[in-house]
C-alpha cells in the first residue's frame, strides 16, 4: 500500500515529506535465503498471500483494489481466518501487476468490479492463509521434534501442550518459508469462523481522517511536472489545430502537447498553472459526424427499438406474445433511463514516467492488470520493462476498472518528455464530459392478467446501449450482450425472481457514439426500475396488494421471497403507516445476492419527496463483515437515489452538456433517509455486496411515490418532472 511506512527501495520517491516505497519487490529472489521469496524488507514470504516479519507483523497481500468498499479489510479477514494469526498485527499491501506477470498470476485476478472482490477469490485466498498456517506449524513442530498433530495454534502463537512450549509466527517464519507447501489443504467449516463474519474495524480508516492518505491526485515524485488535458468534446472527434505559442510564455508552462488524435495537454510546474494555460489555449476541433447527435436523436433511435421485430432473446418460456394478444386484460408501459456519469470524488488521474528502457505508472485503478495492459500498449515497451503501482482510489464505481483512457493519456504525454514524471489530473469538467457513461436504455413492458388477477404473460423489451459491445466485444454471445439482462436471467447470479407462464425478455441493441461503461450496479439499475415498477403497475391493475401479487409468482424462488418477506415484515407492510407516509417494495437478485427494499416516503405539494426510511434486506450467502455491508447498503442507496432524482447526462451537438456538480447534483446529508439493514446470509454461496442493493432503492421509492400520489413516473431523473428530494 502506498500509505505504509517507508522501506528501502531502489526506486524510492517522495510523497509529501515522507519517503514511501513505490511498490513491492515481491518475488525477488535475494541470495540470502535458499529458495525463500522475500518481501521488500527481507521478511520471508510463507505463501504469496502471507509475509511474516520477525516482530510478528502479518503482512497480507491484497490483489483487489480498495476504493471505499472495504474489500481490503474483508479479504484480509479471509486470509487471517485460516492463518489463525493475531488480527491486531495484520497489515496489508498490494502486489504490483508487474510482479503478477512475472509470477504467473500467483495472486489471480486483480479486477475489482462486479462485486467480485471477495465472492470470486474467497477460496484461494483462504487457502493461501491455511497453507501458510500449516507451514508455520510444521516449522515449529520440526524445531521441537514433535508431530504437528500435537501442536495447536491461535493468535499467531503455536503451542505444544505436552511439553508446555510455545513460539510465535515471527520466530518460525524463516524456517516455514523454506518448507514445501502441503499438497492438501482443508478449509474450516464456516461454523468455526472467528474473524469472518465479525464486524472487525477497517484497516484503512486513520489516514483518511488525518489527511495523510495519498491519493493519485496527491502524488509527488522528484522532478515531477503536472499536466491538464482537454479531449475533443465530441466523442470520436479529433484535434484540428491549437496555438501553443499563445500560452507557452505563461507562468510555469513547460510544454504544450498533442495527446493522441483527440486531445491537447499543457504540462507545467504546477497543475494550476497547467490548467490556467490550457483554459487560455485556442484549440480547433474536428468534431466529425457525431456533432449532429443529440439526446433527442438517441431517444428516437431507442424508441424505434421498442417495437423492432429483431431482438436478442435472453429469457423465455411459453408464448408471451400469443398470450398477450388473447389476454382479457393487458397492461403496457414504456420506461426510459438516461446516461449517467460516475462522478467519483477524485477526478481521473495517472502519473507516468517513461524512458525507452522503462515505463512506470502510479494510478488509482480498480484493475491493476488492466492498467498494466494499457501501460504496455501505450508505452510500446514489453511487460518486463513496465510497472504499475496501485494507489487507493478516491472512488471507483466502475469508472476506473475496464477502461484506462487516463493511463494511456498520461503515458502519451510522458513519452514526449522522457525521463520526467508527469502527473495528469483531469478537471471535474473533463471528468464529467469524458466519462464511460451508464448506458441509456428504454423498456416497453406488456403484461397480461387473468380474471383472478394473476400475471399470465410478460414481455419485457429492452432497447438501448450495450456495454460489452463497446468495452469487451469478445464477451458477446452471438452478438448478444448478456450483461444487459442483469436481474432478468433464467439462472445464475442475476436470476429473474418470478415464474410467469408465458415470458419473453429481449433486447433490441441500439448503440450510440457516447461511450458506455460499468456504473455501480451496471444494468440492474434500470432493469430493477423497469421490472419492479411494472410489477407494481400490474398489481394495481389486478387490484391485488403488490406484496401478495409478487408472492404468488415467487413460490419457486424461495431466496428471492425470503428477503422480500423480511423487508415487508420489518417495515410493517400491510399495517397502517404513520400519517402521510406511504410504502413501496422492490426485490432483485444481482451479483449473486438476493436483495429487497421497502421504502417509506412522504410527498408534499405533489413534488417534494422526503424519503424517510428504507428497510433493506440482503442474502449474500456469507456476510464477511456485517458493519461494512451495512455501510455498502446505505452508500449504494445514496448513489442510486442521487441517480434517480438528480442525475442525467444529456447530449447536445454530440457532447455531454453537464460539466460539474451544479448541473449534475448528488444527495446531501439532509436528503439521507434512515436506512435499516437486514443482513441474512443463508450460506452455501458467495454473493456480492458493493452493488446489488443499489437497484432496489429507486423502484421502492417510485412505488411509494405512486402510493402517495397516484402518479407513475416512467422517465428519469425525477428532476425533469419538477420532483425534488427534500
Amino acid at each position, binding site marked *: 500500500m502506498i500509505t505504509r511506512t517507508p522501506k528501502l527501495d531502489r526506486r524510492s520517491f517522495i510523497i*509529501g*515529506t515522507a519517503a514511501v516505497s513505490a511498490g513491492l519487490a515481491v518475488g525477488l529472489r535475494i541470495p540470502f535465503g535458499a529458495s525463500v521469496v522475500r518481501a521488500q524488507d527481507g521478511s520471508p514470504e510463507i505463501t504469496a498471500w502471507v509475509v511474516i516479519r520477525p516482530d510478528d507483523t502479518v503482512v497480507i497481500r491484497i490483489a483487489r483494489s480498495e*476504493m*471505499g*468498499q*472495504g474489500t481490503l479489510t474483508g479479504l484480509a479477514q479471509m486470509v487471517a481466518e485460516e492463518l489463525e494469526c493475531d488480527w491486531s498485527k495484520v497489515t496489508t499491501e498490494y502486489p504490483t501487476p508487474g510482479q503478477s506477470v512475472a509470477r504467473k498470476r500467483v495472486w489471480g485476478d486483480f479486477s475489482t468490479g462486479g462485486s467480485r472482490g471477495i465472492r470470486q477469490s474467497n477460496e484461494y485466498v483462504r487457502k493461501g492463509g491455511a497453507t501458510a498456517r500449516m507451514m508455520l506449524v510444521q516449522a515449529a513442530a520440526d524445531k521441537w521434534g514433535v508431530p504437528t498433530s500435537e501442536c495447536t495454534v491461535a493468535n499467531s502463537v503455536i503451542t505444544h501442550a505436552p511439553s508446555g512450549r510455545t513460539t510465535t509466527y515471527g520466530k518460525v517464519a524463516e524456517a516455514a518459508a523454506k518448507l514445501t507447501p502441503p499438497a492438501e489443504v482443508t478449509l474450516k467449516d464456516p461454523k468455526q469462523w472467528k474473524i469472518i463474519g465479525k464486524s472487525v*474495524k*477497517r484497516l*484503512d*480508516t*486513520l*489516514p*483518511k*481522517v*488525518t*489527511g*495523510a*492518505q*495519498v*491519493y493519485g*491526485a*496527491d502524488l*509527488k515524485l522528484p522532478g515531477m511536472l*503536472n499536466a491538464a488535458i482537454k479531449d475533443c468534446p465530441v466523442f470520436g472527434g479529433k484535434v484540428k489545430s491549437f496555438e501553443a505559442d499563445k500560452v507557452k510564455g505563461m*507562468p510555469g508552462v513547460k510544454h504544450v502537447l498533442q495527446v493522441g488524435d483527440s486531445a491537447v495537454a499543457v504540462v507545467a510546474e*504546477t*497543475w*494550476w498553472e497547467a490548467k490556467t494555460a490550457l483554459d487560455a489555449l485556442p484549440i480547433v476541433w474536428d468534431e466529425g459526424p457525431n456533432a449532429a447527435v443529440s439526446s433527442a436523436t438517441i431517444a428516437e433511435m431507442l424508441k424505434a427499438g421498442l417495437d423492432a421485430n429483431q431482438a436478442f432473446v435472453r429469457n423465455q418460456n411459453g408464448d408471451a406474445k400469443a398470450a398477450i394478444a388473447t389476454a382479457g386484460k393487458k397492461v403496457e408501459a414504456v420506461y426510459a433511463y438516461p446516461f449517467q456519469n460516475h*462522478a*467519483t*470524488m*477524485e*477526478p481521473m488521474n495517472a502519473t507516468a514516467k517513461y524512458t525507452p528502457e522503462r515505463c512506470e505508472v502510479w494510478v488509482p485503478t480498480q484493475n491493476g492488470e488492466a492498467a498494466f495492459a494499457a501501460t504496455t500498449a501505450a508505452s510500446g515497451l514489453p511487460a518486463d520493462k513496465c510497472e504499475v503501482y496501485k494507489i*487507493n*482510489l*478516491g*472512488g*471507483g*464505481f466502475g469508472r476506473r476498472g475496464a477502461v484506462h483512457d487516463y493511463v494511456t493519456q498520461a503515458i502519451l504525454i510522458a513519452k514526449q518528455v522522457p525521463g520526467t514524471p508527469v502527473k495528469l*489530473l483531469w*478537471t*471535474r469538467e473533463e471528468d464529467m464530459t469524458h466519462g464511460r457513461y451508464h448506458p441509456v436504455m428504454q423498456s416497453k413492458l406488456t403484461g397480461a392478467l387473468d380474471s383472478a388477477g394473476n400475471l399470465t404473460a410478460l414481455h419485457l423489451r429492452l432497447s438501448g446501449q450495450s456495454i460489452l459491445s463497446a468495452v469487451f466485444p469478445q464477451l458477446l454471445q452471438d452478438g448478444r450482450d448478456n450483461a444487459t439482462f442483469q436481474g432478468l436471467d433464467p439462472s445464475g447470479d442475476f436470476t429473474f425472481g418470478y415464474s410467469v407462464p408465458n415470458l419473453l425478455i429481449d433486447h433490441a441493441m441500439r448503440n450510440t457514439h457516447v461511450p458506455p461503461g460499468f456504473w455501480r450496479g451496471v444494468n440492474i439499475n434500470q432493469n430493477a426500475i423497469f421490472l419492479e415498477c411494472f410489477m407494481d403497475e400490474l398489481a394495481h391493475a389486478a387490484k391485488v396488494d403488490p406484496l401478495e401479487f409478487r408472492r404468488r409468482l415467487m413460490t419457486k424462488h424461495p431466496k428471492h421471497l425470503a428477503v422480500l418477506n423480511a423487508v415487508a415484515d420489518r417495515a410493517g407492510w400491510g399495517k397502517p403507516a404513520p400519517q402521510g407516509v406511504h410504502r413501496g417494495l422492490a426485490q432483485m437478485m444481482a451479483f449473486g445476492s438476493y436483495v429487497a427494499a421497502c421504502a417509506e416516503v412522504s410527498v408534499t405539494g405533489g413534488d417534494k419527496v422526503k424519503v424517510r426510511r428504507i428497510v433493506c434486506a440482503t442474502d449474500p450467502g456469507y456476510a464477511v463483515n456485517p*458493519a461494512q455491508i451495512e*455501510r455498502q447498503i*446505505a*452508500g*449504494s*442507496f*445514496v*448513489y442510486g437515489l442521487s441517480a434517480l432524482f438528480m442525475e442525467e447526462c444529456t447530449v447536445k451537438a454530440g457532447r455531454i452538456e453537464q460539466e*460539474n*456538480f*451544479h448541473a449534475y447534483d*448528488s*444527495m*446531501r*446529508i*439532509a436528503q*439521507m433517509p*434512515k436506512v435499516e439493514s437486514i443482513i441474512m446470509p443463508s450460506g452455501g454461496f458467495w454473493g456480492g455486496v458493493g452493488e446489488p442493493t443499489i437497484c432496489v432503492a429507486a423502484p421502492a421509492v417510485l412505488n411509494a411515490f405512486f402510493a402517495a400520489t397516484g402518479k407513475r413516473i416512467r422517465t428519469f431523473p425525477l428532476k425533469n418532472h419538477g420532483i425534488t428530494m427534500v
Partner: protein
Amino acid sequence: MARLTINGKALEVKVNPSTPLLWAIREQVGLTGTKYGCGVAQCGACTVHVDGKAVRSCVMPVAAAEGKQITTIEGLAANGTLNKVQKAWVDHEVPQCGYCQAGMIMAVAALLKEKPKPTDADIDRSITNICRCGTFQQVREAIHAAAKA
C-alpha cells in the same frame, strides 16, 4: 508572493495572488489532505478553516486569505492527538474511499465550534458536502458522538 498563516505557521508562498487558496495549499505548501473535487464550491472536498470558519478553498483567491489564520485537515489534530471529530470518525468508521472526508471533517469541526450540540436540522443546514460513497448515515452518527465527547 503571498504571506499565509497555515496551521499556525507563517509562510511566504510564491504564487500568483489570483491562484485559489486550494492550489497554493496543495502545490506550494505541499499539504495534500485538502482535496480538489469540483473547483466551483459545489462539493466541499476543499473545505478549510479561515479564521475559524469553514471555507471552500477552491474559489478563494490566495490574496483574500492573507493575514488570516488558515487551518487544514493536517492542522486539526493538536500535538498528534486527534480532534474529537476525527476521533468520532474513527470510532464510527465513517470514511469509505475517504476522498471527501477531510472536507467533511473540516465542515463539521467548524459547525461544532459554532453549535456545540447541533440538532439534526442544524446538521442538514450546515453540512452540504458531497460524498459519492454515501457515508451520510455514519457522518450524522459521528457528529452527534463528537458533540457529546
